[in-house]
Structure formats: structure tokens, C-alpha cells
């Protein structure tokens, strides 16, 4: 079998049937990661222990024991998710040296299912960014062209997956951080419904928006991985006890009679790049051809989505990041003499040195939004509008099974071209942030190519806990995708 293109389920089957060993599979990807990572900088840290994990899977199989549905499948994990015994930094200097004594629930569930952990993937510092350029560990490259960003914040996950340094990755999405890099790198990424996947052990950015999800090569792999990581977790009170469906078994590309929503406010957006518009229209035509029906829906409040998103996410972040104070773990400024050091200075100096520019910008913004005298006008107002936005989505989904839209306004951009213009960078999020604000599941599936030959994704958004519906639409698109079989130059 060709491991470079093999699906997870085929690989797992081959391992279970001893046609290939888990050790061979993990060794293959680990070697690939070691070789290609210097050019891509997708991994912050490789985990050589993954080989031992793989060997123990083989031993279990040799003894005839049951192994999980991801037995022997090598994964890369965004370095925002805590991994027991492996340094976890959130791509920030301030977490230097932090080795968690616990696994995030997502990682624990992957391990339980037999996955091996090849390493920790690059990201924007604390997942704040859309280009992976704010990482303390340096920018990550897009495997389709290393002069371009892979997107962000889960840039390392998208890059490693597109280059097949692993069979699967986990990313997180607070305002588009799974979908946008998936689109930029031509991989399948799904952000589940808020409450579907446990946030326990995932370094918090904006607690009411954060969700982890798979970033993988195919819709089938996405469905399988989601099955493994989703479901109620006693360690996260915001997870839902709703049962997790067999997403991968239930996949169906039958689009006959399926109702697809087109958002009026997005449809004629002048901000959208012509290549992206072309891909979007092509996707609609393809689905029409498969028998889907289209309905127009209106979500007027999406025009405030980016504003709401930055007010709420920065406010929550300003509080979530307060714990990085140099007292208990991670980075502490190298104080020569503590005896006459005021406590405020201890904090200020440690945090000034430990956090990067973008993170500081958001902490300051969030602190301001929550301050007395401003709280009502900013944070509170944003929360009120957020509830109304949710209601508008409820109305829209009364009419359709899934909403189709572009993922971003513009395609991949060159490294270094937007770092100095944060507002422009933020505007890239207009199609993705509403999904998080309303707590909906959303995904990106590769469907087009730019005139430069880069992949472009299509976004599908579903109603709460309707992941199956958007996976099915993505499955249909995938089978008819013009980019099917196209691979980046690093292959």
C-alpha cells in the first residue's frame, strides 16, 4: 500500500491484518517529518516515543488483543493541546519548558484509539493569528509554495497534513483557525459544534468559542477522527451528552433533495477574490448537478461578526492568559535580585518578555473591553448581538440542511505581507467567525485551484450537532473536486 495516500481505515485494517506493522507506518511518517520539517517548520517538536507507542500496538495485535479504530495511525497535534510528558508551548515563549502532567481529553482519546503521537505542530502564538506568523518558534510554510503562509492559527497542522508528514492532525478553531488553513493548504478540516469536543487540556484562547477538530486528507478520515474525539467529557462541563453518531459509516454523497442555504449577505460580497468566487460558484453548480436544492437565507448580523468576534475573544483571552505570570510554570524573567522587586514589576517584566506582539495587542484590547465603564458598550453589547445572531442562524437552518460559502475572502498570501496590517488580517475572518459565535459546526473541503495553482476550500456550515449533514455535503463535493489527486510539490 502507498502510505502517502492511504486512508486511515485502510491503514488500520492493514496493520490489524499484519500486512504492515504499526511500527513501520509510524517510522515511515516520523522519518518523513524529520526530513521535510526543516523546510516547512510545521512541527515545533517531534516525539521519538511515538515508535514505542507503535510497537506496543503491534504487540497487542500479536497477542490477539483488541485495538482501537485508529490503531497505529500517526497523528500530529497542534501545540495548543496538552500532551502528558511532552513540552506544550502554545507557540509562546511564556510557556517555555512547560511539560504537562496530563493529556488533553482529545489526545487521551486519540491514544486510547491507538493513534501514535508524532509531534507537536506549529501555530500562531496562543492561536491568535491567521497566518502562523506570530509563532515564537518561527513562521511555518505552505507546502504548495514555501514563500506563502499556510494560514492560521492551525498552520502547522495544515502544512504537515498537506505534506503528509502524518496521517492525521488535530487543530483548533476559535474564529476560523481550522477552516482557513485547511483551505489554504488543501486539506479537510472540521470545527465541530461548540460542546461536541472536550476543551479539557487545550490551552484556552477564548473559552466560549474554542473547539478542536481534525485536519486530515479526506472527509472519510475527518469523520472517523471526529467520532473518536467527540462526546461528553466529565472534565469539561460545557460538553454535550448528546450521543456521537457513526459519522464515517453514515457518510453519504447522495445530494438528492438536500437543501443547501446560500447566505444573501455573503453571496455578492465585493471583498471576495475572483478565484474564490469562481470556486464557490462551481461548487454550487456541482451540487445542483447532484440534485441538491438551493435556498436563499438571510443572516444580516453577520456584518457585525468580526467586531463581535474580536471583542469577545479578546475579552476572554485577557482573562484566560492571566495565569501566565511566571509564578508557577513556564517562563520567568531572569531577575537577578528579588529582594526589593515590587510584585507588579515581577509580573510586568515576565509578561512583557514572555508574550509576543499580537498576544499583547489582544490582551490590552480585551482588558479594555471588560473595564468598568466600557463593559456594557463593548463586551456586553457583543454578547447581546451574539444571541441575536444565533437566533438568525436558527431561522436559517429551519430552511436548509447546510449553508455553503467561501472560507476566506482572499487566497493564500506571501509571508510577511500582512503582519503590519492587523485589521486587514482580521477581515480575512469574515466568513468564519459567525460559525464560532453561533456555536455551529463548520468545515472546509478542498474544491478549487487559484490561477497560481493553489488549492481553495469551500466552507460548509451546519446547525448545532448536525456534523453528519455537512460531512455528507463535503463528501459529495470531494468526489467531484477539481483538485482531487493534486498534491503539493514536496510530495
Amino acid at each position, binding site marked *: 500500500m502507498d502510505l502517502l495516500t492511504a486512508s486511515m481505515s485502510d491503514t488500520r485494517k492493514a496493520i490489524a491484518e499484519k500486512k504492515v506493522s504499526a511500527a513501520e507506518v509510524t517510522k515511515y511518517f516520523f522519518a518523513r517529518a524529520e526530513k521535510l520539517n526543516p523546510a516547512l517548520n510545521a512541527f515545533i517538536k517531534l516525539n521519538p516515543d511515538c515508535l514505542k507507542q507503535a510497537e506496543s500496538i503491534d504487540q497487542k495485535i500479536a497477542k490477539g488483543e483488541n485495538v482501537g479504530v485508529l490503531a497505529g495511525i500517526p497523528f500530529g497535534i497542534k501545540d495548543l*493541546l*496538552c500532551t502528558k510528558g511532552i513540552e*506544550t508551548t*502554545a507557540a509562546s515563549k511564556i*510557556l517555555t519548558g*512547560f511539560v*504537562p*502532567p*496530563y493529556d*488533553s481529553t482529545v489526545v487521551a482519546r486519540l491514544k486510547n484509539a491507538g493513534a501514535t503521537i508524532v509531534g507537536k505542530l506549529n501555530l500562531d502564538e496562543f492561536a491568535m493569528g491567521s497566518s502562523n506568523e506570530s509563532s515564537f518558534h518561527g513562521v511555518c510554510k505552505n507546502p504548495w509554495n514555501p514563500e506563502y503562509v499556510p494560514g492560521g492559527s492551525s498552520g502547522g497542522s495544515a502544512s504537515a497534513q498537506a505534506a503528509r508528514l502524518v496521517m492525521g492532525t488535530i487543530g483548533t478553531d476559535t474564529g476560523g483557525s481550522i477552516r482557513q488553513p485547511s483551505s489554504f493548504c488543501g486539506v479537510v478540516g472540521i470545527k465541530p459544534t461548540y460542546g461536541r469536543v472536550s*476543551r*479539557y*487540556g*487545550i*490551552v*484556552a484562547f*477564548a*473559552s*466560549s468559542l474554542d473547539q478542536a477538530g481534525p485536519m486530515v486528507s479526506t472527509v472519510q478520515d475527518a469523520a472517523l477522527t471526529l467520532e473518536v474525539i467527540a462526546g461528553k467529557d*466529565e*472534565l*469539561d*462541563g*460545557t460538553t454535550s451528552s448528546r450521543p456521537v453518531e457513526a459519522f464515517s459509516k453514515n457518510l453519504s454523497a447522495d445530494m438528492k433533495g438536500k437543501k443547501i442555504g446560500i447566505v444573501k449577505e455573503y453571496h455578492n460580497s465585493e471583498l471576495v477574490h475572483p478565484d474564490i468566487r469562481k470556486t464557490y460558484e462551481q461548487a454550487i453548480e456541482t451540487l445542483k448537478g447532484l440534485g441538491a436544492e438551493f435556498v436563499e437565507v438571510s443572516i444580516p448580523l453577520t456584518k457585525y461578526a468580526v467586531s463581535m468576534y474580536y471583542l469577545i475573544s479578546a*475579552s*476572554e483571552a*485577557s*482573562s484566560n*492568559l*492571566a*495565569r501566565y*505570570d511566571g*509564578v*508557577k*510554570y513556564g517562563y520567568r524573567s531572569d531577575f537577578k*535580585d*528579588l*529582594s526589593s522587586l515590587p*510584585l*507588579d514589576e515581577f*509580573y510586568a517584566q515576565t509578561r512583557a518578555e514572555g508574550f509576543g506582539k499580537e498576544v499583547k495587542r489582544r490582551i490590552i484590547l480585551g*482588558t479594555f473591553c*471588560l*473595564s*468598568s465603564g466600557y*463593559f456594557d458598550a463593548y*463586551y456586553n453589547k457583543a454578547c447581546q448581538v451574539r444571541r441575536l445572531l444565533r437566533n438568525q442562524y436558527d431561522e436559517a437552518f429551519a430552511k436548509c440542511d447546510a449553508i455553503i460559502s467561501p472560507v476566506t475572502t482572499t487566497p493564500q498570501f506571501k509571508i510577511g505581507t500582512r503582519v503590519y496590517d492587523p485589521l486587514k488580517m482580521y477581515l480575512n475572518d469574515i466568513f468564519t467567525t459567525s460559525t464560532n459565535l453561533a456555536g455551529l459546526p463548520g468545515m472546509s473541503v478542498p474544491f478549487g485551484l487559484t490561477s497560481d495553482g493553489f488549492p481553495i476550500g469551500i466552507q460548509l456550515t451546519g446547525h448545532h450537532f448536525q456534523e453528519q449533514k455537512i460531512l455528507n455535503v463535503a463528501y459529495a463535493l470531494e468526489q467531484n473536486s477539481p483538485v482531487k489527486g493534486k498534491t503539493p510539490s514536496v510530495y
Partner: protein
Amino acid sequence: MSTSNPSFRGFEAVIGIEVHVQLKTDSKIFSADATTFDSADNENTSPVSVGMPGTLPVLNKKAIEYAIKTGLALGCNVRKKSVFSRKNYFYPDLPKGYQISQYDEPICEKGSIQFEVEGKSKTVGITRAHLEEDAGKSTHFGQYTLINYNRAGIPLLEIVSEPEIHSPAEAAEYCRSIRSIVRYLEVCDGNLEEGSLRCDCNVSVRKVGETKFGTKVELKNINSFRFVEKAVEYEIHRQIDAIENKEKIVQETRLYDPDKNRTFTMRTKEDAQDYRYFPDPDLLPIIVTDAQLSQIKKELPELPLIRAARFVKDMQLSTHDAHLLTEERDLADYFEATGKACNNSKAAANWIITELLRELNDAKLSVSQSKVNAKNLADLIAEVDKGTISGKIAKTVFKEMWDSGSTPADIIKTKGLVQVSDPGEIEKIVADVLAANPDQVAEFKAGKDKVLGFFVGAIMKASKGKANPGLVNEILMKKLKE
């Protein structure tokens, strides 16, 4: 209203109190860590309670139940929906950089508490009672600070009173009553020294007749009710002194130093923080159902004030004794058990207040640790009532019971303390005593009644205290008049 409040040199004191009650749940409010007091430093911690990245709070349902219990006992409204918020500030003993607390939607609101101060009934409004997590504990030495996070995450119920307390005695009694209630409810052990109950007093003064509040000062670090009284007393006079010297009262937090009996500045309002409260997105709102509420209501024990009133009404105790006996639930239970077993509640009250409480206080023991149990004390009272022993002998027997833990019957039997009530036997002793003291008999006959006491003493001595005092008097008079 204010004219009836105590005045201090022409001023009226206005006091509001915040009591932090540590709820005695087995685990912390948001994690599975133990809450034991005497654990080794940082033993009761986990990634959650020290605020490691990505960890999340999971609400302990028991803490909610205890908060509701307390709220109901204080006559509060319990919110159907209440919310946890984050109170943001930096301090090394605060692991997450914020404290999870309740802000604009606390679980309990608008109650009141009634208690007795110097024989008068007093009612103080309760503004709110809200749940929050405790912080860790810092110990400073030299240039270093050590932090013990065992306490971090222990559930606290902060009970906030209206500013309706007007004297040091009222302040102390208010705190005592809160303690009594939370101990009755068994939601807190009420140990001020270990910090499981902490009383912060907001004190201000104003000229009698003035309706505007003066500038308030918060007093912290008070670890006994006596110190509540002393700290408030000191602070009232410090503020009056300042006003009389034309100084300004600064809004600040002051600590009480019991050794020097004074308060001193901890931080002033200029350092006051903007806590940037906002709802904690990690925790869903607490929803209290009617069924849950009525279940908890059903399980509420009889509270001290109601119990005291019952003791006064049904057992004819004095108000003072009734309050003394009901301050602690264990003691009130002990009293009721004793009274019921000997069918003499008044005697039970007297024995407990005069004898048992004195011994317990001297030995620094609680009633549950007493070697004299309710049944034995009741038996002792019954022996007196039956006339088996005199009240005086009974005190000796009680002492023996306290020391040895034996039953009164055993002690009376082995020491031969049964009262002599046989008239013939007593007559013989009286005759002997009179025969041995002819001079005193002559004095009596000459009209000197005082010698009666001498005879009684001599007779009791001759009987080793066992002679029935009633019979002794009767027979003595009869013999002297022969």
C-alpha cells in the same frame, strides 16, 4: 431609627459584615482535590486547582446544596438561575489570575438573621450570599514567598449583611449567630482559628442624627468573636478621634492586630482594582429547580432561634439559658436528650450550664467529647429527684462521672453514697450530736437560733453527708423542742 442605636461620644457606628464560610464539602468546588485542613503543603492540589493551561472547572453539586441550605436558613430568596463570574486580579496565591465568584446573579439574596444582644432582639438584613473559590496561602520570609495551594478552590459562601449593625457587641453577636447557623446546618465547621469562618467588618461612623454614611473602612484578619468586638470598638474610636481632630477618614482595608489591640493600614482605595467581572464561559449557569428547593427545605433542621423559643415556651427555661443551650446543635441535642430521659428539663438545663459547660470549657472539649453522656447525666438527676442522693452529694458524683466516665449508679453504690432517709437512723445521729454538745443546746434554748446551722453541719458531717437534709431539719427541731 438611628436615635435608638447606641451612641459613642455623640456618634453612631454603622457596620456591615462579610462572613466567608468555608463549606465542608469532601472535595473542592471545581476539582476533585481533597479539602482536609492538616494535609502536607500542596498535597491537596491537581492541575485544575493550580490553574495549569487548558484545565477546566467542574462544579461540585454539594457546594450548591450547602449554599442553598444556608440561604434558606437565612430566609433568602434562592435564584432559579445564578451565574459564576470571573473576578480578575493578579496575586501569586490566585492560580488562574482570576477568582471564580458570583457577581450580579448570586445564588441567594435578600434574607435576614435575628439574634439576641444584651437581652434585646436584633434583626440584621442579609444582602446576599454567593459562592466562590478560596485562594491559596502565601507565607513570606526574606526575599521569598512560599505558596500553599491546598486552600485554593475550597468552596466559600460569602454572606454579606446590610449595614444595620451599630455596636461592637452586635457585630460579635451577628458573627456568632452566623456561625451557629452554619454549624447547625453542618455546612461549615466554623473554626475561626483555622480560617474556615472569616469575618470582615466594614465600619464607619457618623454624627448621631446624620443620615449620610461616613467613609467606611474594612477590617480584616479577625480570628475570634472577641476580637471582632475589640477590633470594631477600636476602629469606632479611632475614626471618632480622627473626625474630632479634623482628619479625613480614608477608605481603606485595615488589619487587626490582637497583640496590640489596634488596626493598621493594609491597602488604601488608591490601590483599589477594577476586577473586570464577566460571566465565566467555562461554567454553565446554576439552575435550581422547585423540586430541589423543596427537598432541601424539607431537610432543614430546627434552627437555633426557633429551638430557643421552644425551650422557653415548653420547658420554661429563661431566655438566657435557652440561647446558651441552643448556640451549638450538639449541646442542644444533648440537653433535650437529658431532659427527656429524666423528665426534668429545668434540672437538666441547670446541670449542663453550671457543671458540664464549666468542665468542658476548662478541658477545652466539645460536648460530643464529654465522658458524661446524656443518659448518665439524666440518671444522676433522677437519683436526686428520687431522693437516693442529695443535691450536694450529686455534685461529688458528677465530678467522679466526669473523671472516670462511670455511671452514677456504680459510683453511688461503690462509694456508699445512698442518702439516709430512715427516720430512726437519723434520730439516732441527732440524739448523739445533741448529747455531745450540751452548751449549744442551752444556747438554743436561751433563744439563739444561730446554733441551728452548727447542729445541721455537725449532723451532716457525722452522716458523711448522706443524711436526708429535709429529715435532718425536721427531726432536729423536734428533738430540740422536746
